[in-house]
């Protein structure tokens, strides 16, 4: 037990931040071992940012405790932050400072900058550090924030919706950077409200709803519970395999309109693909439902209230 606790990069016990009127984060028990990439999933206002700010010691808990590498996140906050890279949900504003100056400023506060590593990350994202911060697009501001979180090769990365504002190409680059950090031994705590995103990069996923952790799932379990809405258009000369589709594993809510079939798919697509095998398909669109819809389907409960503190 003691060994397990010592190995945990993040450990919270009944961690609570009560903003009143049912808003906040309640009784969070979480343990994330070192070198794990943990996805923290929840709709807007579910308490993801509150959790992250509690872990970073930015806000004070109403109850419970949070430990990072065995250190109290509030009492030992200076020591904790030596080992943590942080990307806040709202990118900070640096006015007329150049990107290079922002990096040197924050690097200076950490005692120095690994210039080669900074250069490598900036090149990877093609981020021009000679520009003034206020001239950056929102995507470039996000890239700079990512650079600031990764530049000192931290043991733990705490990232609040890190891909917001990034285009798909840069999102892929970010996932690759995350993979490299993990290969170098880093632990990652990564919040998102996009189900498919955490699937890309995470080992385990915690699902937060209305300030409470409702599930911690392994990736394969997440894949089982995930839902997709699928629309298939068959070729004019093809027969719609309605019978095979209705009996296919994971396929639900099937409706047929002419040559167009709509359904939802739970978990794996294998059943659906087997059912349409050998039939000519001219179009197939799969869309991921929003987290609110996911909660509705998975937990069978109404959409939670917004909980933004």
């Amino acid at each position: 037990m003691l060994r397990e606790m010592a190995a945990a990069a993040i450990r919270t016990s009944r961690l609570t931040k009560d903003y009143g009127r049912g808003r906040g984060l309640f009784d969070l028990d979480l343990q994330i071992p070192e070198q794990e990439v943990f996805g923290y999933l929840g709709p807007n206002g579910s308490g993801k940012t509150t959790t992250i700010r509690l872990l970073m010691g930015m806000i004070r808990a109403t109850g419970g405790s949070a430990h990072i590498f065995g250190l109290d996140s509030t009492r030992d906050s200076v020591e904790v932050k030596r080992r943590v890279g942080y990307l806040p949900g709202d990118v900070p504003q640096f006015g007329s400072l150049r990107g290079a100056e922002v990096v040197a400023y924050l690097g200076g506060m950490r005692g120095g900058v690994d210039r080669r590593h900074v250069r490598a990350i900036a090149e990877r994202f093609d981020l021009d550090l000679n520009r003034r911060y206020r001239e950056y697009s929102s995507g470039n501001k996000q890239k700079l924030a990512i650079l600031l979180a990764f530049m000192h090769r931290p043991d733990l990365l705490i990232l609040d919706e890190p891909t917001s504002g990034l285009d798909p190409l840069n999102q892929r680059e970010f996932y690759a950077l995350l993979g490299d950090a993990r290969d170098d031994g880093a632990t990652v705590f990564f919040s998102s409200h996009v189900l498919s995103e955490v699937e890309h990069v995470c080992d385990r996923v915690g699902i937060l709803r209305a300030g409470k952790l409702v599930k911690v799932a392994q990736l394969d379990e997440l894949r089982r519970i995930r839902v997709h809405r699928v629309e298939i258009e068959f070729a004019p000369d093809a027969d719609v395999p309605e019978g095979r589709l209705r009996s296919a594993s994971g396929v639900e809510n099937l409706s047929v309109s002419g040559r167009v079939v709509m359904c939802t798919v739970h978990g794996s697509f294998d059943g659906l693909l087997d059912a349409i095998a050998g039939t000519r398909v001219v179009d197939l669109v799969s869309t991921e439902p929003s987290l609110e819809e996911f909660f509705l389907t998975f937990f069978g409960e109404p959409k939670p209230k917004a909980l933004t503190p």
Partner: protein
Amino acid sequence: MGLRLGRWGIAGFSMVAFVSTFVQTTGFYQIAGHTPAERAALGASMSALAAQFVALFPPPIRPDTVGGYVEFRAFHSLAIIFAVWALASATGFARGDEERGIVEAALASGTSRGALTASRTIAFAIAAGVASAVAAAGFVAGVASGHETVAAGGVVEAGALLAALTVSCYALSLLVAQLAAARAATAAASALLLGLFLVNSLSRVFASLSTWRWASPFRYYELSQPLPPGGNFDPRSLLVLIGISILAAAAAGWAFTRRDLGAPLVHVPPLSYRSSHDAARTPVWRIAVVRSLYVSRLGLLAWSVGMAVMAAVFVSLTRTIVQVLLSIPTLLPYLSIFVHQRLYPAVLGYTWFNVAQLMLAAFAITYVARWSAEDKDGRLEIFLSTPQSRAGIVVERMAVLAAGAVLIAGVSGIVLFYVSHAQGIDLNGQRLAAASLMLVPFALVFAGVGSLLAAWNPRAAVGLLGGFAFASYLDTELATIYKLPLWLQDLSAFKLFGTPLLNGVDGRNLALMMLLACAGLGSSILAMQRRDVGA
């Protein structure tokens, strides 16, 4: 929207206006006496005081009457305070709201740029009208408490002039903010308003400037003094102020339609540009305090140069002021308390160091505004994500402000010494050094209070600190009039500063200032430790 965004400014400046006029009016009845002789004596002493400030304020008319006294003591000061409000509001709209995306959102809703400029200018005009009316109401309430009456026409005219001056300053600042780059907009508008103020006020001392004072809105404000009996109101001056407001606002609206959002009207492309993927190499970023000074280097340079120039101007003014004082026979009994050689240090100590105190208080307030912005803009959160303790960040902020104050006070003190020496005014070097350095603990008192306010409630910190500075200043002005207890007087840094150029540094006052600064620092560390950041 403009009124809603500026509601705290309206409330705060209206309160300042009411307190200022009401307290000065009731203060008049405390000190003026009831006989004509007593009031004549007060008028003579006010004229002596006014002669020392001739470079800032016009000589009062009938300061032996409540109207003349309040016109001089309250309305002329309010004109400066309201000009600062206009400056902050105009640059806040033109650049601050633009950076926060408020302007973009308003334009996206279908409002034209001209209409947006007009609506915000009209909103500010209403705000200025309200605050000026409140100032007039404070005067009327104060007069009523003295069981006297004043002519309603004069009160309305004084309020209208104050509002018109404020709106003209707003419109001029708005115009400059369209022309300058975002980061230079406030500085450029400040420089313009300060220049226009000084052109007018210094023209009373330097005749060569009088050919330019027509360009200053402050000139048209001062052409009327409607409150005292025998005072005057020039309706053409009011019309000129309204004309300046309309023309400058229209020009600002035109400039706004011609420029890109976030860019100045005239954009000078950089001579060469090279992209880079490297962090800045300058070693200053590694050194605590120095890195923050480096970030604000341009601001510090502007403050140092501005204070040095003002110090030189005040030395030049001192000769004129002393000659004016010596030429008034009724003042000779007052002046006889000074040994002849000490008259210059007395006047310089009174004029320059009074202004320097106000400037250092303003300097501290600008730093507290920066701390508040660090909180609101998420920089504090990112700073705290590095291995820095909250206490360390608070202490570093204070150290940065102290270092900036040392620089400004030092540069202005050195300039004061050399310019006065060149003009044949021999000042005691040690006294001057001590008096200049006394400005540092003075600034630290405001920094301590500001640090506590920024840790407790960053959104309200600047307004509350401005209120504290105003109350401190009033404390010194009114302490003797209202016979305030000593402990209350000792809470004012203006009082604690004393007259170090004339009498040396008072050790007790210095210790009290340091105690207040340390109390502010300690309590702000405690407040910062306990508060939520980013929530």
